[in-house]
């Protein structure tokens, strides 16, 4: 099993959700995060004092899938989240030892 994590532009969340739905992936966890990479932030000015805001709002998406689906998920998210502009984000996967569904106590692939 794998945990696929993606950091994407917030306005792309709907597209990613749709793409995953088409893959049959029905669950995910989303959080609002701030990213700092090649994409430049913006400048804010308050009564003449300038502040540079390096961190850009991003959405972090996490999906638990079995090993075979992981590659498809990465591809689907890549296609759905891409705009071709700097700041599109990153996707990575890590292996998972164990997963438990809290309600039922099911473990492993059954809990996905």
């Amino acid at each position, binding site marked *: *099993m794998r*945990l696929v994590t993606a950091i994407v532009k917030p306005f792309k969340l709907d597209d990613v*959700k749709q793409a995953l739905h088409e893959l049959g992936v*029905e*669950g*995910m*966890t*989303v*959080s609002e995060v701030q990213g700092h990479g090649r994409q430049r932030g913006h400048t804010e000015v308050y009564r003449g004092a300038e502040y540079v805001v390096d961190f850009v709002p991003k959405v972090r998406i996490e999906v*638990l899938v079995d090993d075979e689906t992981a590659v498809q998920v990465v591809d689907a998210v890549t296609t759905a989240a891409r705009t071709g502009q700097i700041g599109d984000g990153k996707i990575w996967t*890590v*292996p*998972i*030892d*164990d*997963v*438990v*569904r*809290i*309600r039922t*106590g099911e473990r492993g692939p059954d*809990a996905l």
Partner: protein
Amino acid sequence: MKLVTAVIKPFKLDDVKSALETFGVHGLTVGEVSGYGRQKGHTEVYRGAEYQVDFVPKVRLDVVVADEDAADVVDVIVKAASTGQIGDGKVWATPVDELVRVRTGERGPDAL
């Protein structure tokens, strides 16, 4: 070492925290996230326009533990967070290669 991550119902955070403390885990990181799974979201209506809000508020907690404790920690969280209802969430464990305590520079299991 393992990183145990749990996505749970927000009102269960206190129970999970107490259970982990009783078990002997004294540090954890918590974030407010949104989950999307079998639990249905809700509908909002603004001037007659209905929106389906799929994402449900969840709490994500991360705790790094020794290999031999990982299975027990997962069980402790599952037991404390369970309500038996849909939307109880998931717990998973991933292997951790390296761990450093920032203050002291201690590495590996000493940094736990």
